């Protein structure tokens, strides 16, 4: 028989908040586990009234989704928290932002509206900006054209169970080249499949099809994350919640 702790169960979740935050500057080297630890501690410092799971090891109710890889910066990371008391989303955003180290900046916080679907379902694509210092823009364009012309581009990817070949081409929705301050930039929209195709997999694919080998490490930034819309762009994943909350004007959400 399962043992249960003495005492009353923890208070239930009365409000869910969805937040967008960044991973900037040196903190791009943080892993998803590092970020989870930092966010949980910041929630405690900010005295956000978290709801906890029941049991002998109560855990705060937090869901992380779609973390950018270690080394990649991001303007669009998302997580969801469950609260035991209702709070003003903007106040939670500001308090949490103040409790986090510079570089992890909380940009948005909205109340999750019941019936509007899960946040994870709205995160199926990423728009990446990959800065490639030292790479010639024309060479990059040619490599991208070669890549886009392929049906399949297999790259070896390390997974938990050893190396696995993954089709990088299938995941790439679009790819374009720009130049900024003399630096070649690859703008690429990627579908989040399993296993995920990450910026270094895209670079490995360009190396495979066009022998493109950047002299310096590439610097990737996730500019947006969300659902792929019909035009091939990435939609704001908090949009549906924002629309619904503005309808009920900050009152407790109704189904």
């Amino acid at each position, binding site marked *: 028989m399962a043992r249960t702790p003495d005492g009353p169960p923890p208070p239930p979740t009365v409000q869910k908040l969805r937040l967008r935050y960044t991973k900037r500057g*040196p903190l791009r*080297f*943080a892993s998803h*586990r590092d970020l989870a*630890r930092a966010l949980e501690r910041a929630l405690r410092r900010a005295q956000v009234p978290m709801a906890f799971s029941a049991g*002998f090891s109560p855990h705060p109710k937090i869901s992380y989704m779609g973390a950018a890889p270690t080394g990649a910066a991001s303007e669009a990371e998302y997580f969801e928290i469950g609260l035991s008391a209702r709070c003003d989303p903007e106040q939670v955003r500001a308090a949490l932002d103040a409790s986090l180290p510079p570089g992890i900046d909380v940009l948005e916080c909205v109340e999750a509206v019941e019936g509007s679907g899960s946040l994870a379902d709205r995160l199926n694509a990423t728009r990446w900006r990959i800065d490639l210092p030292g790479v010639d823009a024309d060479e990059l364009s040619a490599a991208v054209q070669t890549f886009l012309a392929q049906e399949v581009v297999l790259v070896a990817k390390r997974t938990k169970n050893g190396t696995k070949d993954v089709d990088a081409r299938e995941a790439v929705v679009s790819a374009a080249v720009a130049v900024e301050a003399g630096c070649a930039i690859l703008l690429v929209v990627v579908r989040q499949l399993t296993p995920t195709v990450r910026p270094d997999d895209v670079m490995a694919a360009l190396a495979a099809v066009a022998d493109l080998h950047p002299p310096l490490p590439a610097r990737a930034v996730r500019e947006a994350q969300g659902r792929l819309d019909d035009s091939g762009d990435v939609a704001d994943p908090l949009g549906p919640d924002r629309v619904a909350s503005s309808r009920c004007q900050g009152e407790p959400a109704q189904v």
Partner: protein
Amino acid sequence: MTADLRASAGDSLYPRLEPLLAQVQKPIQYVGGELNAQVKPWDDVAVHWALMYPDAYEVGLPNQGLMILYEVLNERPDALAERTYAVWPDLAGLMREHGVTQFTVDAHRPVREFDLLGVSFATELGYTNLLEALDLAGVPLHAVDRDESHPVVVAGGHAAFNPEPVSDFVDCAVLGDGEQVVGDITDVVAAWKDQGRPGGRVELLARLSRVDGVYVPRFYAVSYAADGTIAEVRRTRDDVPARVGKRTVMDLDEWPYPKQPLVPLAESVHERMSVEIFRGCTRGCRFCQAGMITRPVRERTITGIGSMVDAGLKATGYEEVGLLSLSSADHSEIGQLAKELADRYEGTNTGLSLPSTRVDAFNVTLANELSRNGRRSGLTFAPEGGSERIRRVINKTVSKEDLVRTVTTAYANGWRQVKLYFMCGLPTETDEDVLEIAELAVEVIRAGREASGSKDIRCTVSIGGFVPKPHTPFQWAAQASAETIDHRLRILREAINADRRIGRSIGLRYHDGKPGVIEGLLSRGDRRVGRVIERVWRDGGHFDGWSEHFSFQRWTTAAAEELATFGLDLDWYTTRERTEHEVLPWDHLDSGLDKEWLWDDWQDAISEDEVGDCRWTGCYDCGVCPTMGTDIQIGPTGRSLLPLTPVSR
């Protein structure tokens, strides 16, 4: 070289480091920016300290000593302190390839440009990492090869009570508590720089040698007798002290550090904040160097602890607080402290914990109280010796009945996991002493199953090889050989597994005896051992505290070849028992303990005689208080903790 291109001192290496970080494991450990980290402008201060913990970031960051000094120094308007840690081989290789030198994680400034490099040695196994860091920093390995542009390398921490093995590589060693002495050192360096560096590096070191607690090895000459033992340690200048005494901070409430504990993004070995509830220990466990060199006991008051816990939790967001000391249940107000802290954090999911405690039923009550609001993981006791006889030898007396009763009480109170710490290879130990650990564990499980009515309980036996340490009654003892340790661990394992029905509830955690032998060489070594350390580092040795990097072969080869020059070998330093009047390498360094008292206590150990605790049974003349001008500071104060407005939830 890049140094020539640099615009000014104190510039960041980060732009050149960043491309390398994309290619290494766990890059987050090198970027700094931890919560409560500080960066001060380089040119605003006179004295620049780089503080190093010579192990990986995940081990070094939580170190309390370094955190305390970091804050104490940064509070001074004329000083700044930044931190640096041992760099893993993957990054070290890239740094050498790209000419990036050892850097601080705070502002990524080159360690080479600081005035002082303070290194905290909790264990001797960090010595090779110091050499690696010096080399990566571009600082000459040998103190005599440095000029006034190089940092003064200062060793501290418990291992600094015998810095002789690293005396070629450090400029000074600091004995005892660091809070005040770092200020004195800063004053000396600031004045010397302000005066235009008169007399160069040698004059600076001479001035430092006159600071209480600072030992400058180069001003002391060691001569050896024909049998290899030390003939004499003589000072070479008459303006330095004949013996260097340790520093002792009195009134811990005046030093409530760390006030703003550092919180890393990276995972570290201690995912909690710590508050030191007292310093020093007079239980008199004869193997325990910490208990001997940190006397007397100085308690923080219950109210002082209460405000540190409160401020620390607010500053960090940690969900667990460790109440730290050498024997936390001995605090004169611990019962009240546990209850009032638990009351204060009721309903906040804040856990409170004690490090391993003595085997005492009262400690189960304490643990019950402390775990009221947090996670009830496991309880740890440290009987240290397997048999009652050996526990008398080490002066950690507890009867077998009390031990079994205490652990059974823990199971009966709902703790399902109990960990027991033991040592193996203690002086006078026989196979039978170690085999009693198995009997004990079996009895504990039998009684525990009965008391808890459950088979779902576990006992983990954690056992380490004993290493004799300087400034303890066992400093004269013969260390057990690696073969002896390994043999005893093997028969213990067999005995525990003899009855599978019980044995499956007992876990055995141990390390083989080899690293202990090297730790023994470094602990009780003299200046001649420096050549072994340097040779091992040149042969690729570092991170010796990590089994995947430690190479026993590399150490034994280096020891055999380097020590042969002196007609000595590894065994001479480890398994050889010392005689009463042998000059020990650390005799000129004064922990306050009277050498005659230590010898008598060693003789008492052999005859299995116990000694009491001066807090309760009266002074037994260990020598510390009169020599150092200190006194025991304990409560109870009669004060109590007021409830705080709890963290809302």
